């Protein structure tokens, strides 16, 4: 049953509007090439094909609750092999964004990882692995710290972990740019 989202748009329309370019979602034949190609397909709640089917059927809540987009590894096999040239990977990113915004996605591991990453980039302009890993592990998998310790020690010994974050000179400019971009996006959706 097509559930109607804000502004009288269907879920399908919402997803298409929130994806840059034209993802050609209406062309889907449900052939399953995407689901067959996906390296993490077997571990997803719904294969990419099934998820697209759910979008077309207007099943907004189950789609945004699905772990599917969070298991996407961005390998682009689906998008490159789709016989109808549907931009599957871009749609996965859209669903991630919508899932976080709608607060419908239950497992916070993947979203939090992204959020932690984003925080470092927004404050420093660069990614900071050590900060990212330690924050993420402590929050989500404290015992994982022990597992990863071996590797961590190895990386430190080989000089491949930086202990301090680097900050770009134009960080204020970057912050202003990002703030404006977010403002424009919010306007877009009204």
């Amino acid at each position: 049953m097509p559930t109607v989202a804000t502004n009288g748009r269907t879920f399908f329309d919402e997803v298409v509007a929130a994806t840059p370019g034209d993802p050609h979602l209406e062309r889907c034949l449900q052939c399953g090439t995407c689901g067959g190609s996906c390296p993490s397909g077997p571990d997803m709640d719904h294969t990419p094909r099934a998820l697209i089917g759910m979008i077309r059927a207007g099943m907004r809540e189950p789609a945004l609750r699905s772990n599917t987009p969070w298991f996407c590894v961005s390998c682009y096999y689906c998008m490159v092999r789709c016989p109808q040239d549907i931009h599957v990977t871009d749609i996965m990113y859209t669903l991630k964004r919508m899932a976080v915004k709608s607060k419908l996605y239950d497992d916070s591991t993947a979203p939090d990882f992204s959020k932690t990453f984003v925080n470092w980039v927004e404050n420093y302009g660069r990614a900071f692995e050590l900060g990212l890993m330690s924050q993420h592990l402590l929050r989500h998998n404290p015992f994982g710290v022990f597992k990863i310790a071996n590797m961590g020690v190895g990386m430190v010994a080989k000089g491949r972990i930086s202990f301090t974050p680097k900050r770009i000179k134009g960080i204020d400019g970057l912050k202003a740019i990002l703030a404006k971009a977010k403002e424009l996006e919010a306007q877009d959706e009204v």
Partner: protein
Amino acid sequence: MKYSYFPGCSLERGAAAYPYQQSTEVIARTLDLEFVEVEDWNCCGATEYIALNRMAAYALVARNLAQATKNDGLKEMVAPCSACYLNLSKCDAYLTDDAALAANVNAALAEGGLSYKPGSIKVRHLLDVVVNDVGYERVAMRVTKPLRGLRVAPYYGCLVGRPAFYGQIDDPEYPVTLDKLLKVLGAEVVDYPMKAHCCGGHMTQISEGVAFDLIRRLVKGAADYQADLIVTVCPMCQLNLDAFQGGMNRYFKTNYHVPVLYFTQMMGLAFGYEAVELGIGAELVDARAALARIGVEVPQVEPPAPRKTRRPKEALPMPAMPEEVAK
């Protein structure tokens, strides 16, 4: 040849892929490639930023494209990291196609005193620059210590070949440019079926089981073909296959030992440079044993015995494959 250069966060000094940076600098000197770092570049966002933001993600990347335009006269920007390459090229491609997006992104950039006209900068992957701009012949001319006797599995990963926003550098399913490059360096290249399969990206932090399985497929594939080492073109791939190989072994109770090096390091070795100059030794899966095969002066090496059995006379003919499969 001069280009703008976008190293990316992981190639920084002290970061996980610093050896890639070191070896790139070395081979750039040898091949007369001059790289001018983009001023005050920022993180491309990897696969994380765009998971939470749309417009801001494009603005984040566009800032780099805008900064690159400050390198006068340099229209091309080289990125050694496949993920950076994807984000930069995808941003430029979508800005070119979607005028509304471009307008919004430029409005955001203006807040930072910047602007970017879509299509002004062409983003290139380092592998593309080496095989197409420098060319196999010129690389061959610089080889002083061919890597004879070394069996290598060329590993492209996903993003250098797909989704090819600027048009294909190589076949997205069965790429061959790195294979050819390694052959030119004198190595024996195995026909590695997993060469364009995914390393898992950030999955190690999301779901260990999925991540380790993806890594295992790749390492096993190389080991099954008796490769001495895997050669990569991307820091994420290198990290996953190298740093997490131990974790994968523990998870599956296997004991693979396949070192993972960058293609620039292989080039450096073939050009006669010392391992330490190329950042070799920073891998967690030790490459010393594999490299010992070529470290020693080897005058005439018998090619290893053919691994295929002789075709029986009843065998049916195979279809003819074209010489050049790429492009």
